[in-house]
């Protein structure tokens, strides 16, 4: 899965009707809540990069999530 594809899946799971930007802060995304976090975990599972909720909670931006998923951005 490419970074673009990962971001698209993330967008679906967070249930946003607009693309996600790597520079976005999670606290600025109204839809970023526990359901969105669960969805994000499942996207990680899809790429075989399982993480736990505690690790996801450490992320403050989309860029942090991308890094946890092994993307450079």
């Amino acid at each position, binding site marked *: 899965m490419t970074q673009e594809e990962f971001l698209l899946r993330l967008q679906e799971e967070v*249930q946003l009707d607009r693309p996600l930007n790597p520079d976005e802060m999670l606290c600025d995304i109204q*839809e970023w809540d*526990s*359901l969105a*976090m*669960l*969805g994000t*975990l*499942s996207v990680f*599972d*899809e790429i075989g990069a*399982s993480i*736990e*909720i*505690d690790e996801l909670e450490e992320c403050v931006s989309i860029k942090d999530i991308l890094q946890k998923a092994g993307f450079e951005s």
Partner: protein
Amino acid sequence: MSRISFKDIAITAITTTLGSNIIALEDEKERFGFDDEGFARLQRSIGLQTRYVADQGVCTSDLCVQSAQDIFNNTSTKKEEIDALLFVTQSPDYKAPSSAIIMQERLGLPKTCAAFDINLGCSGFVYGLFTAFSYVNSGMKKVLLCVGDVNSYFAGERDRIFTPLMGDAGSAIIIERKEGAKSFFSLYSDGSGYKHLIIPSGGARNPTTQESLIQKLREDGGIRRDEDLFMDGKEVFNFAIKTVPPLLHEIVEFAGMNNEDINYFVLHQANPYILKTIATRLKVPKEKVPLQTAQVYGNQNAASIPGTINGFLHEEFSTKKLTLAVAGFGIGLSWGGAVLETDAIYAPKSKLYTKEPL
């Protein structure tokens, strides 16, 4: 616990009785205070549709008595063959005595039948099954295991965090000698997480007070009393996805099998989201992991594994020899897994509760 295996013991009947009110979550939006957008998001994420809820005044024991009577009416099992009745529930008829003892009399079981309750929730089917297998292994002829809950006993009526997930059901299971059948069990508990799923008040530690009976808006957005069940969803999800995949790997390996040998992984039906995540981590085909029970019936607590068999796999279980892996996980925290072999058994489609005897 060390891993335990049994030979020549098996389940021969499973029945489930459902609360008779079928409630669409859509119709409960207002009660739980969901706005349209929030509700649509919840439905897209978790996919909850309906839940089966018992009438006010109907107890879990009523559902289980109907399930057990169904078995006595439709199989060769005789009441006088039952040496023990185990009732796994968190919603007993009374604080004391054990409801199982009252059920002994209601079902017309012999006085030689041992009867008692086991206080467990979502892990309770596996714990109860292990106890029943142990009793048959020690010489009892047949054990009647009853499991389930009527959630209004402890679910806040306006708690949007917990209550929309829950459904009412009571199952009955017969465990007896069956030549050639093998089974494997592994049970765990971790009391350090007891606060993640708890009814804080109403017991000896925090007795009932006027304060504990007041409905309050809580930090998580749920409205409940201190005598209603609190669930920390994040912690419970974390616990489930961390413990259940390794548990299933362990038990399948202990059975000397691999995932291909297992026809179905029937897991506690917490919600489809948790099950989807566990299935992905198990790396087994999704069709081997039924996950729709909570969407259709609601989370049936200790009855959710038998409830899934009677709800969605009844034809398979009624006609085929199967190898299944089961896992329960939840309040305590406690969790347990088993690999079981069943021949074609009595496993009819789940039935609605009816006040009239079957």
